[in-house]
């Protein structure tokens, strides 16, 4: 995410780009790479926790005798993903797959996607529930710091002009045709970036945390409104799973955009903070 220091780095830049600017502050960079590790660990340990009961339900209760809306399993020599009435053959990837030594496994998510790689609910919970605190700590520091230093207001909140439908439509067209901002226009996030980061920050991450807490019987006792907010513990578990996949989707788009926009420049800016404004075509 971008911190743009306009005054210091502005000297010597040309409108046509090509100059090196200071784009990401050290707080943003540290949080970014902490999250990269912490969220990957939480995803992969979460998939192992899901493997312990690969069914999702809506409502207050839900167990083997009840009807799931999503199920990953196997029958005979086929692995499947069932969503409602839809059954997708996922042999080899979900439900039934071969482990690193070639042996057939009947778990939902395969060993390359889980922490630990072999079935161990207890150990995956240790990872998940400890890294949750690392995530919470990083998020709290980031949130306080971003409000304090103006990062949120200056870099992430869209300006009124950016929210006009015409402008958004134009940005969508530019993205669809892979025409990215050049020169000075690349100094700030575009409106699609701002909206995406805001959705992740104020919708997806809070949903993830709150649905995670709703799965805790102790927190449900302390904050019973969580059960009403999500319509029950099993609904919260389902939403937790869905939002996890929206975050994976965000991650995939994020990586694709980095690669398309120039991976070396982008990755360097997130390591050293320095970003070279892309040159405009003559």
């Amino acid at each position: 995410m971008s911190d743009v220091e306009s005054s210091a780095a502005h000297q010597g830049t040309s409108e046509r780009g090509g100059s090196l600017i200071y784009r990401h502050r050290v707080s943003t960079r540290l949080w970014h790479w902490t999250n990269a590790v912490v969220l990957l660990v939480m995803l992969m340990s979460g998939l192992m926790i899901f493997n312990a009961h690969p069914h999702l339900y809506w409502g207050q209760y839900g167990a083997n005798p009840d009807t799931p809306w999503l199920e990953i399993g196997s029958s005979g020599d086929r692995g499947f993903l069932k969503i409602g009435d839809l059954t997708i053959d996922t042999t080899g990837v979900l439900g039934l797959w071969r482990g690193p030594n070639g042996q057939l496994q009947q778990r939902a998510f395969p060993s390359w996607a889980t922490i630990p790689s072999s079935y161990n609910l207890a150990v995956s919970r240790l990872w998940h529930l400890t890294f949750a605190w690392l995530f919470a700590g990083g998020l709290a520091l980031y949130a306080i710091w971003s409000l304090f230093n103006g990062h949120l207001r200056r870099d992430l909140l869209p300006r009124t002009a950016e929210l006009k439908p015409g402008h958004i439509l134009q940005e969508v067209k530019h993205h669809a045709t892979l025409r990215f901002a050049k020169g000075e226009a690349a100094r700030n996030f575009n409106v699609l970036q701002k909206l995406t980061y805001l959705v992740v920050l104020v919708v997806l991450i809070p949903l993830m945390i709150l649905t995670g807490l709703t799965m805790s019987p102790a927190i449900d006792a302390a904050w019973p409104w969580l059960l009403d907010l999500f319509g029950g513990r099993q609904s919260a578990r389902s939403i937790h799973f869905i939002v996890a996949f929206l975050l994976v989707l965000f991650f995939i788009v994020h990586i694709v955009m980095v690669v398309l926009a120039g991976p070396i420049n982008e990755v360097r800016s997130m390591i050293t903070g320095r970003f070279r404004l892309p040159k405009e075509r003559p």
Partner: protein
Amino acid sequence: MTQKSFLSRRRFLTSFAVGGSAALVAGCDALSRSPTFREFLGTGEWLNYRIQRLVGGAALAREYTEADLSPNFRTNGNSRPRSNEWNRLAAADFVDYRLTVDGLVEEPQSLSLAELRSMPSRTQITRHDCVEGWSAIGKWTGVPLSAVLDRARLSDRARFIVFHCADDFRGTSYYESIDIVDAFHPQTILAYGMNDGILPTGHGAPLRLRVERQLGYKQAKFITRIEAVDSLSDIGRGRGGYWEDVGSYNWYAGI
């Protein structure tokens, strides 16, 4: 950028991602086995225990209505103890069953089911959350654990209540333990009834624990003895419960 450099870059990124994933998984597996890292992974339980106690206080778990009951409450863990003693008692409808209450108590008890039923009772419709992720709602009737502990005059030195069970896994007896806060929580009961009937065998007859702010494996079934202790280190392998001992499950299971 040229087409050639893009392709080689893509190939580089792909192999980087695949190799990275394999290294990450292997690395995490190695870390999972390292005692120092396991200690770090234990900090989550420590934080959850303290913070949930802080925000939870004496809060009650949600109680549901008859309409919310699971149509079919599945059983879990052992569905029937193998012990000869338990089977002998079960054959006679547990008339000879006695619950032993001992350890750090001033007046050790030996209570029959009739005596337990004559004590104050509490009925609650609550949600059972298994560590695996599923939930089932059931109606439980039993005697508050606090009433049993008061009757035995619990010592001030007691810090944990241990539940010894009649069932076993491969010869190792099941047991569980909770702290004094949960032991005196109003919804912590020794249940002898379920869904308006007698507690079924699969759900822990004749007596099981309900400790409603924790996960399923804490809800000890087939209880034969309650022991008050000041430390868990001498019980089993010292981690406070069967699954805690053999499977590195957290002793505090509030999440």
